[in-house]
Each structure stands twice: as structure tokens, then as C-alpha cells.
């Protein structure tokens, strides 16, 4: 307090030592319930699964052996299906990054006008996004059914019967067929996010660009696209993260088949753990998935926390 002259009496509250300790503890007391749940239901299981990934264990018995990084080296060097699954995930992610996102953007651009019926269209396109993916998978499995599925019936009806086939049982068509289902169910979210982004762009920018002589394409390039930067970051990050988490659609529609051509990391982890009782190996795959997502999601997380 050197150099500061205070005139008059400043009332000062005196506190006992115990009181002061309580004040220091107070914030932690407030977050304690959340912390307990977080530690008990998230951190602890994660640590257990990390430990499991270093074991050779069937997941049930009391016997296990510590094998170090063997599960990880097996995954990388001795498991052809894991390679297929990884390849499928990468392909899926590339597809997820481009197809539903650009479709979503296109629809957002079309529906971002004051026209009668746009609300109905927005609702219809977004509707699949609220369905559980398991239901989506089941519905589309019926549609793909070679005998009574809507798709083959339609092809016969329009005279393209020679194109009809067993969509999900074909080695070549199974993966694209599942992916089409994914696109159907996942254009809604990017559309909604892009719509929100479009509506946040100040209309003056468009007017200004028109006065500057920009045509429709130039306005899209110089006003709309830059204005959607935030939306791009969110949409693309979610697509990447989703691309490595694929499970439900594959599980319900192809069960990883025919053969193992549609296995992805998510299903392969499930098969290893619950079908083949390789809990240690399954846990290792889980950690591979988690690491990939984490690495890919870091730019997203950093971007979001910067805002």
C-alpha cells in the first residue's frame, strides 16, 4: 500500500482461517458433482480401456496376459481386415467431406430465399437427421431388398430391370449402397448449418458487391463463400469425425459383408470384442479410432475455443 494515501476509514471484514480455507475450496465444491461423474464415467473407463489394449484377454475370464504393444503391431502389420476397414473409413470420410456437404450447401442456397414452401422443404430434408441411424439402416435395407425392395421394383417398373440386383450382397455395390443411405440421412445437418451461416451474412455485402459490379457467381465467390467460413469449419470437422465413427449403418445393413468388404474400424472393433472375444485387440482398435479422430479434430477444437 506504499504511496497510496487513503483518507477516512475503510471498513475491512476480518475472516478466520477456517473461513478463508472454505472460500478457497468453494469453487471446487461447486464443480465436484460434475467432476465425479466425469472421472467415474469417462476418465476411469478410458484408462481401463487403454490398459486393456495392452492385454491379451477374452473380456470375460479372470485370466489375461500383458502383451505390451502387440495388439497395435498386429493391427498395423498382420490384419488384412483392419487394412480394409481403415481403407473404407478413409474412403467414407472423403465421401462424407464432399458429397453430403456440397449437397447441403446447394440445398441451403436454394432454400435460403423467401419463397412459399421453403419451410416445408427444409423440414423434409432435415427430417432424416432426427431418425436414429439404426432405423435409417433398417428402412434402407428393405428398400435395397433384391426381391421386394422399392428400388428394384422401381427399376423394373421404369424398364431398367437389368440394373436391378442384390445391392447389399454385391461385392462392388455394397459399400456405395450404404454410403447412399448415409448421404440421404446426413444432408440435413450441413444444410441447417449452412442456412444459419447464410442468414448471418449481412445483406449489405450483397448490395455492395452488386454496386461494385459483381455478377451472381462473383457474389457467391467473394461474399457467400467467405461469409460461410465458420460454417465450413464446423460442417467439415463434423464430417471427418463422423467418418471415423461409422458403425450403425454398416452393422444394420451389411454386417460387414459380403465377405468382409464393408468392414470399417467401428464394426471390426465390435466383431473383435464381442464376436471373437479379443477384448484387448478391440480396445486397441478403439484407441486407434480415438487417436485418428483426436488428431483430425484438434484444428476444429482449437478453432472453436479461439472464438
Amino acid at each position, binding site marked *: 500500500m506504499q504511496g497510496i494515501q487513503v483518507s477516512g476509514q475503510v471498513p475491512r471484514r476480518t475472516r478466520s482461517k477456517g473461513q478463508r480455507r472454505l472460500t478457497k475450496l468453494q469453487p471446487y465444491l461447486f464443480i465436484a458433482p460434475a467432476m465425479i461423474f466425469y472421472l467415474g464415467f469417462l476418465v476411469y473407463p478410458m484408462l481401463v480401456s487403454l490398459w486393456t489394449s495392452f492385454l491379451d484377454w477374452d473380456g470375460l475370464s479372470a485370466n489375461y496376459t500383458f502383451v505390451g504393444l502387440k495388439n497395435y503391431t498386429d493391427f498395423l502389420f498382420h490384419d488384412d481386415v483392419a487394412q480394409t476397414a481403415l481403407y473404407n473409413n478413409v474412403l467414407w470420410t472423403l465421401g462424407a467431406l464432399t458429397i453430403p456437404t456440397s449437397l447441403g450447401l446447394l440445398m441451403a442456397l436454394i432454400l435460403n430465399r423467401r419463397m412459399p414452401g421453403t419451410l416445408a422443404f427444409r423440414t423434409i430434408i432435415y427430417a432424416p437427421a432426427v431418425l436414429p441411424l439404426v432405423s435409417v439402416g433398417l428402412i434402407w435395407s428393405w428398400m435395397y431388398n433384391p426381391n421386394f425392395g422399392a428400388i428394384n421394383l422401381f427399376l423394373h417398373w421404369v424398364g431398367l430391370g437389368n440394373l436391378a440386383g442384390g445391392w447389399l450382397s454385391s461385392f462392388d455395390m455394397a459399400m456405395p449402397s450404404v454410403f447412399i443411405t448415409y448421404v440421404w440421412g446426413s444432408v440435413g445437418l450441413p444444410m441447417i448449418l449452412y442456412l444459419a451461416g447464410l442468414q448471418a451474412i449481412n445483406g*449489405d*455485402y450483397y*448490395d*455492395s458487391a452488386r*454496386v*461494385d*459490379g*459483381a455478377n451472381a457467381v462473383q457474389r457467391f465467390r467473394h461474399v457467400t463463400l*467467405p461469409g460461410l*467460413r465458420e460454417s465450413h469449419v464446423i460442417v467439415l470437422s463434423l464430417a471427418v469425425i463422423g467418418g471415423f465413427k461409422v458403425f450403425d449403418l454398416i452393422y444394420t445393413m451389411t454386417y460387414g459383408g459380403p465377405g468382409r468388404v464393408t468392414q470399417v474400424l467401428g464394426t471390426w472393433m465390435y466383431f473383435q470384442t464381442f464376436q471373437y472375444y479379443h477384448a484387448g485387440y478391440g480396445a486397441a482398435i478403439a484407441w486407434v479410432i480415438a487417436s485418428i479422430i483426436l488428431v483430425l479434430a484438434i484444428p476444429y477444437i482449437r478453432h472453436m475455443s479461439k472464438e
Partner: protein
Amino acid sequence: MSSVELVGLHKSFGAHEVIKDINLSIDEGEFVALVGPSGCGKSTLLRIIAGLDETTTGDILLDGEIVNDETPRERNVAMVFQSYALYPHMTVTENLSFNLKLSRLPAAEIMARVAEAARLLELGDLLKRKPSQLSGGQRQRVAMGRAIVRKPALFLFDEPLSNLDAKLRVQMRSEIKALQDKVRTTSIYVTHDQIEAMTLADRIVVLNKGRIEQQGKPLDLHRRAANIFVAGFIGSPAMNFLPATARLSDRGPVAELADRTVLQIATGARIRDGQPLRIGLRPEHLALVPDGGIPARVRQVEPTGAQTHLHVALAGLDVVVVVDGGIEIAKASSVQLRIAPELVHIFDAETEARLNGDHG
């Protein structure tokens, strides 16, 4: 540079008619201010001239040619928006050169024009910044620069200063005036600030509910407002209005106020005995006199420095009087007011139209 002509302009949004039969011609190089209360259609009119909105009926002529179907680019107009609308992801340089790049001007020419605008508006140090890194006044300057680099035929301003604080607004106002003296481009300037209009414009056009109430030189509007609306809109502090009755006595025409106080008015007003009037008294025209004036009681004293605004009770109404800031007057004191008869504005109480002839 262009001359502008608006012929029989109408604009409706659905059933709501916003612009009602506007006829206006603007000479080459003229600076015209469009003023009027909020919602009177100023921005709409400007957007129609710019080519951002279409007319419902009527024609827009630039240099005598109908341009109704031309895009803003073809009309070669530049516009400064109230929000500035600087492209947020572009630097100042990129903002300034955007139009020139779209016009495929040679790079050297673009550089030269940007440098010229930067010099005129003192933007030199800011060229590499993004709009988010600029202050309000700097953004405003960039917005002006963006209009200038294009060397347009016509400048359109939509309340360009209304987002600035009072001090900056005054400063930018004189900068705009200086700039206009240099470039002399035909300009239409929308504002609801009548002081801006008075100080900047060669001519003021007063809009009300989509119609032109009056147009003319700033001081002409101030001295000979055609009706109560214009008289009340132009001038600050605003004109005082009092209901009165016309009396033709042998001492000449007078206006009798509600409390029977009589006010001498100029001869030559087209009034008949007993006609209901509204008289307008400019606060700066009311003078304090030692005696022989109209007695009034001071209700409120508002010193502003150079001037003091007195709120006095006259015929039961609140009347503002502007006096020299050096005069000391206490609240609740009694004063005597006088106004020269030829400075009393006389309006018909019903039609609200001006009744007296020229004076100044």
C-alpha cells in the same frame, strides 16, 4: 459525371406504397441531400437510383437516358452504405480495388487509383489491415475511398455518418465537404440529420411519407419553409409553433395567441380576419428585451456554451429561445420577448401551408 432525373417514380412493397410520385432533376456536379423522418422512403429511393431495387412505375434517367433496366454496374454508380459494408475478409487495399479488379483494369492503373484514394483520405497506414482492425471513422473513410477509386458518374450516400459519435461526425462532415470540392461528382446524400444536409448540400429535398414536401437551397428552406412539416424539420433547435387567430386591426395584421397576447405580423400575408393560424417562431429570432415585449416565464435553462436555450412558457406552451451564452438568466425568472413581425412564419392551421410571402 451524370445528371439525374426521376420521372413519376412509384414504388410499392406489396400493397404498401412507399414512394409516391417523385419527380426530381439533379444537375451534373450537384450535391443533393435527401432528408426526412425515419421510414419516409429515403433509402428506398436511393436503392432505386442505384439499381438495387426496381421501380413499380416511373423512369430513372442518367444523362438523359432511361436506365430502368440497367444494373448498378452499367449505371456506373458508387454507394456508401450506413453499415459501410466493407468486405470483412479483404484488406483495405482489396476492398478499395475490388470493383477495379472486377472491371479488369490493368494492375498498374489499380495501384495508382488506390494510392490516390489512400492519399486523399489519409489511409496510407491502414492499407494492409482488415476492416475489423479499423476504428469507426477509419472504416467510414475506407467506405468513401471505395466509392472514390471508381471515378463513378454518381455518388450515393445512405446515412454514411450515422454510426459515428457526434465529434467524429462533425469531422467527417467537413472531410466529405472538402472531398466533394475536390472531386465534384454528382452526389445524392441521404440523412435524417438536417444539420448535415444544411452544411453539405447545394440543394435539400425534404421527403415525407414517400412524397417530396419541398426542395431548395438550404437557407431558402430555412427561411421560407413551404409548410409546417418542413419548417419543423429544418432548423435546430426546431421552430416553435403556436396556435393563433388572425386579426386585421387598424394597426395592421396581428396574430392573437390562445391567451389573447397579440403578435404583430408582417403585412402581405394572405390572411382573412378570424382565420385559424399556426405561427412559427425560430428560437434564434426571439430576442430578450428590457421592456415592451411579450412577458414570459422561464421554465428551464439549458446552457450549451456559446448559446443558452431557454424554455419559456408563452401562451401556456413551451417555447424555446436561443440567447447568447454570456447572458445569466435564472430559472423561474420573468422575461420579455420580442420578434420582428417579418420573422414570424404564418401557416394555415388546416392546410398547414405557408401564408406569408418572402422575407429573410
